[in-house]
């Protein structure tokens, strides 16, 4: 029983991890199991806290108390809500498509969980270490999996998240959910392009898809947020907010227009799953941002190589960075008014995608120039000039088509 699994099937998913480089024994499986459980429980816990945190912060900003009955500071409010939802009656509209209606919440929840698998949450990246820790005598990374395709898994999961929303809206057999889901789908598909292009800039700097490698490469405060010149980070954050359907991009559930959006017809535990998925996604997305742009768990470990330096301090750094972004999302929600739908589309297609593409090309120019030994400032200037010319043309064409559309639609609107 030394080998029940050869480095083939699952190894592909978990590939770069030294855990799976040799023979796979029982201990290895145990380690994997531990990591999965820890990640799952930790994620759930963080969601519970996140929900409480958000409600509390918003309540404070609106000059009210927020949850303060269940447990100290209302900490158990989320659990109480969850219990209530589970015990509510499970309603399904008559015109709903039963199978898809039941399937949709899972399609929302599962990708949210899976994405977190690639986030490294601890491990020392200083002093030449590359985040390897030893658990039960097995060397491994502090993340559930580090596949070859690495960050592409995040993209894949974020594109799958669309299914949950889309199918939920459609399966409800009702028009507001359908409208909400069609809106959400269009929005998420649109922003995925910007997301991917901003991601590409990071990958260009990191030279690897593996999250471990990306974090490792950022150790010593060579964080991508400035290594890529801030623009990809800004674009990524905006696109991520839109991808999460969080305010100010929460057109999916615009109450004034669509009642509750795609989950109007959902109740009970199925609604809880959507709810859970939304907050899971928020946490995961923050973790991804931290991983991609802020060096993940890397940070000063003060020379400690014992468990404090390997587990506690890195996790602390990770958690602090995560907290910053969670706060940011909460603040977005609390302060920003909702976009109009056409504004969302304009922002995504006409600003974010061209901007991220242009910035990516600029970074490529810099990279090529340094590889080929060209004059760097001159190359950057030339590239920037070209990109500005392109941007100018783009603006011109957008204006021209807008003018044309206005001219065409005027008589049509009259009739």
């Amino acid at each position, binding site marked *: 029983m030394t080998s029940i699994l050869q480095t083939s*099937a699952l190894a*592909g998913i978990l590939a770069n991890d030294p855990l799976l480089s040799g023979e796979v024994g029982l201990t290895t499986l145990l380690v994997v199991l531990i990591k999965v459980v820890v990640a799952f429980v930790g994620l759930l816990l963080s969601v519970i806290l996140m929900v409480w945190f958000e409600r509390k912060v918003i309540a404070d900003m609106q000059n009210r108390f927020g949850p303060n009955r269940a447990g100290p500071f209302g900490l158990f409010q989320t659990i109480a809500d969850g219990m209530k939802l589970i015990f509510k009656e499970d309603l399904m509209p008559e015109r709903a498509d039963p199978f*898809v209606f039941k399937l949709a919440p899972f399609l929302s929840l599962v990708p949210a969980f899976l994405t977190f698998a690639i986030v490294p949450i601890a491990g020392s990246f200083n002093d030449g270490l590359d985040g390897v820790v030893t658990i039960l005598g097995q060397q491994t990374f502090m993340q559930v999996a580090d596949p*070859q*395709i690495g960050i592409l*898994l995040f993209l894949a999961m974020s594109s*799958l998240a669309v299914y949950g929303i*889309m199918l939920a809206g459609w399966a409800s057999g009702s028009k507001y959910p*359908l409208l909400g889901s*069609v809106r959400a789908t269009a929005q998420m598909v649109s922003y995925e392009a910007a997301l991917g292009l901003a991601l590409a800039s990071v990958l260009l700097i990191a030279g690897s898809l593996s999250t471990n490698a990306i974090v490792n490469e950022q150790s010593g405060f060579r964080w991508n947020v400035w290594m890529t010149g801030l623009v990809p980070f800004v674009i990524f954050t905006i696109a991520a907010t839109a991808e999460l359907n969080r305010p100010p991009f929460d057109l999916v559930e615009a109450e004034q227009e669509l009642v509750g959006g795609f989950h109007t017809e959902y109740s009970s535990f199925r609604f809880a799953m959507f709810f859970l998925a939304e907050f899971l996604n928020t946490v995961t997305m923050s973790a991804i941002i931290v991983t991609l742009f802020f060096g993940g768990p890397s940070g000063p470990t003060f020379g400690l190589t014992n468990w404090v330096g390997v587990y506690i301090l890195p996790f602390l750094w990770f958690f602090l960075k995560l907290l910053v972004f969670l706060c940011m999302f909460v603040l977005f929600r609390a302060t920003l008014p909702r976009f109009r739908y056409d504004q969302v589309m304009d922002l995504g297609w006409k600003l974010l995608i061209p901007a991220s593409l242009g910035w990516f090309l600029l970074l490529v120019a810099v990279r090529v120039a340094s590889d080929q030994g060209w004059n760097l400032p001159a190359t950057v200037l030339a590239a920037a000039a070209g990109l500005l010319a392109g941007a100018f043309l783009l603006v011109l064409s957008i204006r021209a088509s807008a003018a044309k559309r206005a001219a065409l639609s005027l008589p049509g609107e009259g009739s």
Partner: protein
Amino acid sequence: MRVEMFTFLLTAAICLAGSAGVVLLRNPVHNALSLVATLFGVAVLFIQQGAYFLAAIQVIVYAGAIVILFLFVIMLLGVDRAEGFDRDPILGQRPAAIAVAVAILGLSLTALLSVGSRVTGQASTLAAIDGSEPNINALAKVLFTDYVFAFEITSVLLTVAVVGAVVLSRKAGPAIDLGEFPEGTTADLLEARHAAKTQRHEAEGDDSQGDDLEGDDPDDGDAEDETTQEALR
């Protein structure tokens, strides 16, 4: 049972069930979901054979974009009603289709199983898969060296496709004002066509609406809006 075998059989079952679902389920949305199941199965099989990048692309592009597009169109056009399987309007299409399918399956199985477990063909000498190199790097190396021209061409193809889709989906312009045309040109032609059509209508009664053309109706531009509204109803 070896884990790989187990994975394969499970995935194969999902794939076959998914593809059967595409063909047999009546509701287009269910078809699309079945398709997604098959795509996932194929992605897993890709991983099992070391094609990690393709597996990721399979999920991102196929599941994440193409099938979403399908669903989008289904919902936009409101064609998400079940399709009747009772009879095929084309005479003999169904038995012929089944015969062809059986022939294809039988022949390919004959070909595959008769050669046993060996794959006939020359092992690569040019672009060998190097175990030490990640799959993505190897693929990228090939794509940007040997196949760089094809790669660039596909970018052109995508651009063309985008332009084509935009042109196709654009709203029709305002209806043609026949008064603008001088006599004896298109206006007369259209008028004659219209007259012929009216005559035919009178002759046949008005129940041939189905294969009639709505082409020169002036309110054609509103068709899309109607469709959308219908989809949302």
